[in-house]
């Protein structure tokens, strides 16, 4: 059979019109069935849904669990005190991103469009959080980071910016670590040992920005990959260059290979690290002795004297999860950040008295003072600053066996 030209045109036109009609119906249906978050109708007493997109399974599963615990303890407290927005309880809806950006993006869209969450908490992985940003902004739903530290998550190009964070920010951490290397370790020359990925690059920029401000000379920048088993040649170059302190940015497994390579060189040099090495089995991989030699950054420690809030949270964690003590708390940084972030979220919901994204976003700039676990938050967010924590809120810690303990200085 041969189509005449007019038939082909007609066929295309019909198909187009059918498609347009279908699309129109779909849009109308989606409006009718409420595929967008809505605040219409009587919702008093209904739970306010909040989402968590984090690694619940996989190599970073401990991080997801620790965040979940921090959020849940805070939610129990908030709901016991009457909930938010005049009596609505908070309900947490959790999705597993498996440390995969694509899965994080899909989960974000599903949580907002189907579950109608008012805001989303993020997990450990910066690449996942960065990938979630376009969806967050397209659907105008606030994002609250509680672990992922990439500078670009909160300092992004979106206007208005829906990404907030109660966690470290690479650039601020780099300032903190550089200052520590100069002031506490007495270094004048530093060597950078960075994982060969965007996270390493993000921190390279930060170190290059801050080192000159503290009068530090970067004698070399060495990059290595996840699977590298021996980087002693690269470290040897830093040793020859006269590095007095090494600044490390890597997760637990490659960080451990770096420590083993130092052992090969028999080079006893101070190592100051970003918190990547706290997210896995660093002492098991590097060895107990080597792991003690690294000083790294955290936002909170449940060891030592606790504030009243610290004692309350520790007791709640122990009771809810049958923990013997602070040594049983998985990845304390995730739990502490998540606890404070959830409380700030509750205050924002109260301030906004709405689950509409734009209203809730504005409310973050007008929060009342909150006496939190990590610190007392006085206007934690401003239009120019979406990071609630700064270098004054970081602490330095070391591995002691399987525990992360604050260093004495």
């Amino acid at each position, binding site marked *: 059979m041969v189509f005449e030209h007019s038939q082909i045109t007609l066929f295309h036109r019909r198909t187009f019109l059918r498609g347009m009609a279908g699309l129109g119906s779909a849009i109308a249906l989606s409006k009718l069935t409420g595929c967008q978050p809505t605040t219409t109708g009587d919702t008093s007493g209904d739970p306010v849904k909040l989402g968590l997109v984090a690694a619940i399974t996989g190599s970073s599963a401990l991080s997801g669990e620790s965040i979940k615990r921090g959020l849940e303890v805070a939610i129990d407290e908030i709901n016991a005190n009457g909930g938010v927005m005049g009596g609505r309880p908070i309900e947490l809806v959790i999705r597993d991103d498996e440390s995969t950006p694509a899965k994080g993006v899909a989960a974000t869209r599903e949580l907002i469009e189907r579950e109608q969450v008012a805001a989303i908490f993020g997990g450990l992985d910066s690449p996942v959080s960065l990938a979630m940003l376009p969806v967050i902004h397209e659907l105008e739903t606030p994002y609250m980071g509680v672990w992922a530290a990439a500078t670009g998550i909160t300092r992004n190009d979106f206007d208005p910016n829906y990404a907030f964070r109660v966690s470290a920010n690479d650039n601020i951490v780099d300032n903190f670590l550089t200052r520590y290397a100069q002031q506490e370790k007495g270094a004048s020359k530093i060597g950078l040992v960075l994982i060969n990925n965007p996270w390493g690059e993000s921190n390279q920029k930060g170190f290059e920005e801050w080192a000159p401000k503290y009068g530090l000379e970067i004698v070399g920048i060495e990059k290595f*990959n996840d699977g590298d088993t021996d980087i002693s040649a690269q470290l040897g170059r830093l040793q020859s260059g006269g590095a007095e302190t090494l600044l490390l940015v890597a997760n637990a497994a490659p960080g451990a290979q770096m420590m083993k390579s130092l*052992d090969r060189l*028999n080079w006893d040099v101070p190592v100051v690290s970003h918190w990547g090495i706290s997210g896995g089995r660093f002492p098991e991989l590097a060895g107990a002795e080597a792991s003690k030699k690294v000083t790294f950054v955290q936002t909170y420690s449940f060891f030592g004297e606790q504030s009243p809030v610290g004692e309350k949270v520790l007791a709640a964690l122990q009771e809810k999860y049958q923990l013997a003590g602070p040594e049983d708390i998985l990845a304390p940084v995730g739990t502490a950040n998540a606890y404070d972030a959830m409380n700030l979220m509750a205050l924002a919901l109260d301030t906004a008295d709405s689950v509409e994204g734009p209203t809730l976003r504005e409310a973050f700039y007008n929060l009342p003072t909150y006496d939190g676990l990590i610190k007392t938050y006085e206007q934690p967010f401003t239009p120019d600053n979406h990071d609630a924590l700064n270098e004054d809120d970081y602490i330095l810690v070391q591995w002691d066996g399987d525990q992360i303990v604050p260093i004495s200085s």
Partner: protein
Amino acid sequence: MWPQLILSGMAIGSMYGLVALGFQMTYAVSNTMNFSQGAVVMVGAVLCYCLNITWGLSAIAAVPITLILCAALGLLIERWIVRPFARNGSQSWLLSTIALGIIAENLVMLTFGKEVRGYPSPLAETPVSILNFGVYPLELVIPVVGLSTALALRLLFTRTLWGKAFQAASENPDTARLLGVPVTWLIALSFSLSTALAGLAGMLIAPIANVSATMGTLLGVKAFATAMIGGLSNPWGVMLAGVLYGVVESVAAGTLGGSYREIVGFIVVIVVLSVRPNGLFGRSQVKKV
């Protein structure tokens, strides 16, 4: 710096060589390959870790049990993943073995977990100093094991009746069958030996490279590359190519930086194969008709 780079490169290169020997062996006998060799490396390391560390079996027992299990896995691969396709003259064994590797990796993620685990070994605890550079004793043991295995295989293939049977099965399976050579059985045996070698490599490298579900992926690709540049007709050449490749990688990473490890390594592969299509030590096959 150089002795350190060379010794370190030889250790990792011997791993490539051992796994590549598996490619060479099955290709020599059956003209097929098991592209899940990298996954079998991982399976060897994970099995040994579970037997030795998780279930507390002594290393003396865990190592042979792992080797036997890996060898058995090879038999299963040949029977169910390769033979049904190869028998019909299809090349689909290529895809089916790759698929098996992916399945194995995901199964291990589900059961063993995705976390990277450290494998404690007295041979990888304290470095010994050689020419003022520290190397782990295991890094000296690995090349010795690798080169000895290659030598043993060469002797097996060239000096024994078994070797002649292997060659006969490879060159003309139909005639070999008529002369009483158990060709089907020999092919299964070659797969079994190849997976046992991959398992051995996994166990050897685990204390240095740690144990994880994804540890074999890149290693399998590099082993295939070294099998190609070594020349698929020569086990000794394959092993030597593995060691050389490891040294090239190590020197590239050490002198130019970690980012250049794979770039330089695979450029070398392309250059070698473009100059010598049959590999550094291989000979072009001439089929007399």
